């Protein structure tokens, strides 16, 4: 079978873009009526032609999600371990060229944060770092997982892409899930958004899910940073990637996230503030995208973070989303150690996990705090 690189290279951005925009109402209706949908149907579902079918898509997405996941919502919290980073990413507050106070949590601080997060009710945790191999390389991550294992049943990471053997080491310590977003599949512009650092290597990032699959990581999280490039074309490539991975690493679970660019505090040397988000996605279109993924793939987990507003989250939890964070802090030490430090991005929904759990229950869903056990990994 072809590698994903080969599959990826057999498509061009402009052809895909053209193909999505040429989908018709007929294609959308066909996709909605089928029992099993393929990638062409996904194109139709994310096309402008499908916008008129939003309510129908939402109804279908709601039913399919309940059938598979029941009336439940998985809860998780991110813990930022470090904001040190050797990369320049034009959209990120932790970018190397952004003059901020850098911080990496010590052992005692990790424990302090863990206790604060645990007290909020969480049992699934997502560890986040920038890319700084000296301070937050594999030995640091391994140690952090060892420290946190007694506190949490399920540990995920969102860190720099690693080698297969490194993932294997972390899995043996109890790592369950790795999130690695491609940010954009637009190869030429990828370089513009990531001009410096290891992250500027497009293909190394593109092939990270393969290394994760080979390392037998339980779950791989995919996504793009919505707002960098045309979201429709980028989402097509995400779906294409998902299809390839499901066939190749059939023992692995997959999830998709929907981060969209939000205002960040970029204190450049010249004092200029950057406003990216040239490819903004509307709330309506984000709902379309969430529903399109669900209708396309009934089993994939769909995750929504606190980047989204209260109203959006209140209503979207019935549309296909299966996991949520709440009360998140996106700065290292943000829960307890150093609550005032700079966040990676401003969260929009600041309600506590308790409040969110209440909203989830009100809508007839059960917030799930534990759905894994230490003994399984």
């Amino acid at each position, binding site marked *: 079978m072809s590698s994903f690189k080969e599959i990826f290279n057999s498509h061009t951005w402009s052809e895909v873009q053209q193909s999505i925009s040429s989908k018709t109402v007929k294609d959308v209706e066909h996709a909605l009526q089928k029992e099993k949908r393929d990638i062409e149907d996904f194109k139709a579902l994310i096309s402008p032609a499908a916008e008129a079918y939003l309510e129908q898509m939402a109804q279908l997405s709601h039913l399919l999600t*309940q*059938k*598979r*996941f*029941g*009336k*439940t919502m998985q809860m998780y919290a991110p813990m930022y371990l470090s904001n040190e980073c050797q990369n320049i990413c034009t959209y990120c507050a932790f970018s190397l060229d952004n003059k901020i106070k850098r911080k990496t949590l010590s052992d005692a601080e990790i424990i302090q944060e863990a206790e604060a997060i645990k007290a909020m009710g969480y*049992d699934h945790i997502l560890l986040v770092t920038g890319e700084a191999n000296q301070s937050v390389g594999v030995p640091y991550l391994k140690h952090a997982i060892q420290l946190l294992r007694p506190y949490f*049943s399920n540990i995920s990471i969102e860190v720099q892409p690693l080698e297969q053997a490194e993932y294997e080491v972390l899995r043996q310590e109890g790592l369950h899930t790795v999130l690695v977003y491609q940010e954009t599949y637009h190869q030429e512009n990828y370089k513009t958004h990531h001009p410096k650092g290891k992250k500027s290597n497009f293909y190394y990032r593109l092939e990270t899910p393969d290394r994760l699959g080979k390392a037998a990581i339980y779950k791989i999280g995919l996504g793009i940073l919505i707002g960098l490039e045309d979201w429709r074309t980028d989402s097509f490539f995400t779906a294409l990637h998902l299809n390839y991975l*499901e066939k190749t690493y*059939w*023992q*692995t*679970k997959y999830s998709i996230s929907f981060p969209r660019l939000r205002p960040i505090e970029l204190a450049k040397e010249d004092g200029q503030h950057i406003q990216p988000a040239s490819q903004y996605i509307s709330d309506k279109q984000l709902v379309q995208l969430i529903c399109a993924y669900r209708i396309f793939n009934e*089993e994939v987990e769909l995750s929504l973070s606190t980047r989204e507003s209260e109203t959006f989250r209140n209503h979207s939890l019935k549309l296909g989303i299966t996991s949520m964070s709440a009360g998140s802090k996106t700065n290292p030490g943000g829960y307890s150690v150093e609550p005032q430090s700079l966040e990676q991005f401003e969260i929009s929904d600041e309600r506590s996990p308790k409040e969110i759990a209440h909203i989830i*229950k009100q809508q*007839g*869903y*059960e917030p*799930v705090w*534990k*759905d*894994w*056990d230490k*003994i*399984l990994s």
Partner: protein
Amino acid sequence: MKPLVIANKTFHSRLFTGTGKFSSSLLMEEALLASGSELVTVALKRVDTQNPNDDILKHLAHPQFNLLPNTSGVRNAKEAVFAAQMAREALETHWLKLEIHPDPKYLLPDPVETLKAAEELVKLGFIVLPYIHADPVLCKRLEEVGVAAVMPLGSVIGSNKGLQTKDFLQIIIEQSKVPVVVDAGIGAPSHAAAALEMGADAVLVNTAIAVSEQPVPMAKAFKLAVEAGRMAYEAKLAQPKNFAEPSSPLTSFLD
């Protein structure tokens, strides 16, 4: 109706139930009580066995509910055996629903690993009920290693598609010396009734009850369907005939 006996334990209800996907633990409790179920499967990964106030376990604390811990989440025999031992210790029961589905998409059971794990777990003293494909040969192999019952699937788990594997279930029911529990895919009370009419000893239902608009009446409907199906089986169903019964038989001249 004849009670069902598995590993010397008598069940008056032939409806086994799951505990996932409910909109609250309280509703789960109410639905399971309405179902009359006496064997309730619970995923080890969903409960906090260290916590005496675990929300799920708290709502299952009724004398009629016998817990059937399951190994959902394990990918091979080795992990299954380990998880089973933990479950036995934590939930204080030898009963185990052995499920090994390395494919997280369709959650289809791995026959090779399941057979391997079943053999070992039986030796370790477990009462093993393995979740498997509707594979008659595998059922006989599992019976030979000493499982207490077999749990072949009716269709893909959570699909609500009913008895898609009917032809194979029939062979399994015909050949099996241990109870046959049809698990997975049962989406409507009529599917459950059909399984019991066919001679299945019990069914296990989760999604169809939990995801229903009204889980409590739905649980009751399944209870009635299972009873009706079993009653019909015991009363000997009239068989549909493939040939006519003429009033002037061709062989009457021999009388």
